[in-house]
């Protein structure tokens, strides 16, 4: 199979039929062997019934129904897990992405790019509540991951399936899917895509809570470092504590030297010395332990990560 189109849906009762018709028309025009994977993320309206009807009509369609709402990352992950195409295209189920851009994305993948991201240059959303926070988040994501993409929030993206299989999605990573995939080394490109105003329903996903993005990013960033060379990173964490311990030791010795005979010796500084020494030693031990954990882990996949961080392909 050449192409899997993954579409997460959550309470899209009104738009799902129109969306399916458009996607089908666009995909048929591509002239490739394709499947459409519709992931229902625990909708509470009539979406599921509509999806059943659609899967009856269209043999290309496969519907994955969640037991409850798990969020967009999980929905995309489920779609990826089911996908069998060499290329996977994801898009929003709300008709804001234009299925006619499939061809453009696919062409770029065929030119050798692993991840091709849609860029809604002309975005049809509110400036203050949606576009400004999203600009800030995109800048942050670019600065922290090194994968500079203007529009991480755009779901319309194309990936090669083997790149997807290498990455592992975490918590709410749909907000920076492309940088995540590219941590395992990839060639990525941005293409301008069409963006349409919402016709039905209301928006459910998007980069809205920057602090969450920030926390997730920090975790990912840390993880990438810590899983490749845990002992070294934990040792780095121990350095300030060791420095503090040495400083406190110096103060203790100094106090001892200048002290009048018979005066009470203040125990605060020696105590701090002990505490900080203990902390840095603990961190070093934890680092060695982490090394053990990583070595016994799923080595094939960590090895892929290792090769990347040690100067693998980055475009």
């Amino acid at each position: 199979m050449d192409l899997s189109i993954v579409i997460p849906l959550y309470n899209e009762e009104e738009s799902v039929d129109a969306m399916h018709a458009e996607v089908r028309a666009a995909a048929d025009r591509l002239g490739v062997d394709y499947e459409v994977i519709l992931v229902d993320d625990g909708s509470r309206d009539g979406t599921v019934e509509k999806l059943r009807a659609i899967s009856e009509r269209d043999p290309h369609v496969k519907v994955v129904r969640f037991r409850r709402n798990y969020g967009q990352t999980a929905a995309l992950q489920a779609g990826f897990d089911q996908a069998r195409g060499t290329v996977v295209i994801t898009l929003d189920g709300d008709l804001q992405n234009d299925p006619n851009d499939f061809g453009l994305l696919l062409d770029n993948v065929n030119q050798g790019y692993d991840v091709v991201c849609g860029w809604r240059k002309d975005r049809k959303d509110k400036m203050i509540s949606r576009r400004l926070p999203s600009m800030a988040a995109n800048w942050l994501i670019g600065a922290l991951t090194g994968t500079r993409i203007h529009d991480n929030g755009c779901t319309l993206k194309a990936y090669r399936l083997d790149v997807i299989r290498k990455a592992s999605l975490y918590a709410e990573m749909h907000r920076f899917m492309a940088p995540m995939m590219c941590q395992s080394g990839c060639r990525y490109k941005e293409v301008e895509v069409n963006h349409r105003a919402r016709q039905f329903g209301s928006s459910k996903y998007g980069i809205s809570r920057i602090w969450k993005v920030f926390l997730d990013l920090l975790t990912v960033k840390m993880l990438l470092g810590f899983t490749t060379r845990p002992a070294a990173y934990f040792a780095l964490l121990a350095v300030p504590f060791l420095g503090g311990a040495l400083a406190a030791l110096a103060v203790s010795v100094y106090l001892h030297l200048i002290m009048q005979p018979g005066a009470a010796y203040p125990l605060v500084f020696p105590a701090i010395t002990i505490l900080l020494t203990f902390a840095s030693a603990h961190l070093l031990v934890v680092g060695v332990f982490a090394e053990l954990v990583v070595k016994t882990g799923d080595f094939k996949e960590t090895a892929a990560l290792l090769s990347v961080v040690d100067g693998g392909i980055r475009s």
Partner: protein
Amino acid sequence: MKRGRLRGEPEVSVIIPVVERAGDLRQIFNEFAAELDRLGKSAEHIFVVDDRLREVVPLLRSLQEESEREIVIVVLGGRFGESAALTSGLERARGEVVVTLPSYFQVEPRGLEAAFKELESGADLVVGQRFPRIDSFFNRIQTRLFHWFVRRLTSTSFHDVSCGFKVMRRQVGRELNLYGGLHRFIPVLALHRGFTVREIPVAQRTEDRRTRYYGAGVYFGRLLDLLNIFFLMKFTRTPLRFFGLLGAGLFGLGFLVSLVAVLEKFMFQVGLSDRAILLLGVLMMVLGVQTLSLGLIGEIIIWTHARNVREYRVAEVIRRPSRVGGFPEVGRRESPGLDGALQAS
């Protein structure tokens, strides 16, 4: 020969774990079996006996001899507790619907009818709420308080999670993965796995009243179990969110305390060597970093050992019937899943 066996698979499996105390098992069995007959359901009865209550086995044996119905007796090899007993019973259950009953008089058999109706209308698990509750004042207060915590921590709306009377689809039982004290939180666990759970009021037996006073210690233990569940449900995939927040908070607090002590030295000439509070500040910073490093270890373990754990649960995969495979495909691709992680903990 036993009637049930001739008829093949029973519709309902009744599981009675006999673990802590046993009431008149014969009477419980008779009453519920009669009610099941009235409702026209074929049933098997599975008694799972913990080693502690071995003395009921002869009674169950004679019951098995006398009765026309299908009775299975499972005796556990040790004192494994109720979660293990339930799991063992659930593994053997052959009916599409599983009913669990406490081994003493707790609720009236009449509750079955309403529970079955709820199942038919789409619920996956129906739990009984003993209502109106007959219990000592002290116990009632404790229960109220405990359930307030449960509702708060798990954002659910249950009033009687530990009521032994439950009716569920077999699939629910298969996925619960009970251990330790988790059997008391079955509704919460099932809801978290995405099943539809409903609570129905069930008339309580008057015999249930002559019960024990639970000491405060009992509920303290349960509260610990609850915290365990809360943690596993929320942070199994993202331990750093928990440890990181806790660690960062501690570190920040410690940093502030130390900063104040240092500032005071420069502004008011208070000698640092006399300030024990500085020690507290440093201690908190150390604790903070250690907590954080534990969270990091947690993340590393998940990242390197459980990459394929999936947070989501698929209800079904729907495809046009003419294509390969059956329709609907229920629960395909349900790889390790969270239960793996829960069990490993």
